[in-house]
């Protein structure tokens, strides 16, 4: 009997496929998310748009809130640790959370090094905006990936950019010759063996979800259409006018992302989605996606 194997950690993410993972800030919100059909919840103190508004340093969620969330739902509970913050991750592991998100949404604790994730029993998800980042995170031990997008903006454009870029880069790698692969590994700054895997299978070895900017059912369906395995929704649900309706509608649109009539139907009477931010209005220092490369 072996725990914490790569198959057990990656397999846990496989079970989330086609699902929606929702940010929640309290036990009460976690119940709403579960009742709406979320496949997991992400416990955090503030959703990204509030982090953006509040400024200052954003840290791991209070363990008390994490425990309260774990108590009230039977679906998996994830929580965020700061990039490079080994101890926050160990604390979350000791609480028994099911997945850790080493996340650029929080203020990085280390500007160079990510957490060495292999040595943990529980799995990690990490953000990536290109194939280089994606494979570096896998090499460090991430068992699941997600696009970075631009969190807390309600603007899908960055998540689209990241997913398209990663998929386009994978198609290119598939067509490289062996000598070109050695060079490409150097250019991307990734291990040759991982790149060879992409070359042979045309796929990432772990699940890749969309995240960062999903605000409407149509946004979620667009990311599925572009090849995401599932969707994280951060501020999009609990910053909308009617969280319960938005949560249910996004779950349905993710499952039936090719059924446009259904997406139209579930998008009626939702009230206003979260207010969005145009990306060009963000200062360089406000761009979360540029953290942790």
């Amino acid at each position, binding site marked *: 009997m072996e725990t914490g194997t790569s198959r057990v950690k990656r397999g846990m993410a496989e079970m*989330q496929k086609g699902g929606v993972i929702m940010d929640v800030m309290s036990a009460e919100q976690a119940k709403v998310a579960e009742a709406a059909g979320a496949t997991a919840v992400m416990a955090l103190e503030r959703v990204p748009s509030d982090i953006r508004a509040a400024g200052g340093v954003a840290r791991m969620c209070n363990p008390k809130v994490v425990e309260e969330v774990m108590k009230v739902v039977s*679906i998996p509970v994830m929580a965020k640790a700061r990039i490079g913050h080994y101890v926050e991750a160990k604390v979350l592991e000791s609480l028994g959370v099911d997945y850790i998100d080493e996340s650029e949404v929080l203020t990085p604790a280390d500007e160079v090094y990510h957490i060495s994730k292999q040595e943990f029993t529980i799995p990690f998800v990490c953000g990536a905006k290109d194939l280089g980042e994606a494979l570096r995170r896998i090499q460090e031990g991430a068992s699941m990936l997600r696009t970075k997008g631009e969190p807390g903006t309600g603007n899908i454009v960055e998540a689209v950019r990241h997913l398209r870029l990663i998929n386009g880069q994978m198609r290119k790698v598939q067509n490289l010759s062996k000598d070109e692969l050695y060079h490409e590994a150097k250019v991307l700054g990734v291990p040759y063996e991982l790149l060879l895997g992409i070359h042979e299978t045309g796929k990432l070895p772990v699940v890749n979800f969309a995240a960062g900017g999903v605000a409407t059912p149509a946004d979620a369906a667009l990311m599925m259409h572009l090849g995401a395995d599932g969707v994280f929704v951060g501020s999009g649900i609990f910053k909308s006018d009617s969280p319960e309706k938005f949560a249910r509608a996004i779950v349905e649109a993710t499952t039936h992302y090719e059924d446009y009539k259904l997406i139209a139907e579930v998008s009626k009477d939702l009230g206003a989605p979260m207010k969005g931010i145009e990306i060009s209005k963000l200062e360089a220092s406000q761009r979360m996606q540029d953290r942790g490369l």
Partner: protein
Amino acid sequence: MRIGVLALQGAVAEHMRSIEAAGGEAVAVKSTEQLDELGGLIIPGGESTTIGKLMRKYGFMDAVRSFSAQGKPIFGTCAGLIVLAERIEGQEEAHLGLMDMTVARNAFGRQRESFETDLPVKGIDEPIRAVFIRAPLIKEVSSKVEVLSTYNDEIVTARQGNLLACSYHPELTDDYQLHAYFLNMAVEAAVAKR
């Protein structure tokens, strides 16, 4: 033999790959109309609460019950096992309620307690590599249900006529014995029908 994999949420592609590796034809099932053309149905691993909700929403509960009543085989893995069970510990409502057994969700604990192991299964030659992820257990079965394997004295694989269920994930490995076993159930059911 054409086998459908219920594609509302969860590890659909892995089951399709395993069925094809075992010699069957696999179809992703998103609507009830697709059931007619199938010789068997797999309810995959995923989140049972999500899968159950979406099944209700899109009319799968009655459709799958009548699929089963025709004697066509159904195979539930992990969340699929929970969906098949008549009784779920700590919950008032079951989902399909087809197999006469009581199951406990997340019975081994949280993700850090998830594991893999070699598991002998009755009717299958070699022990299979079983991956348990926040897995459920079968706590109690009636005399209608045959126990095919146990782990630490707890039931993890069971069959009731045309229904097969396991609490682990055979679809996450390259071991296709259990899928071949299920394909054979579908072939036998089709022959019996003729």
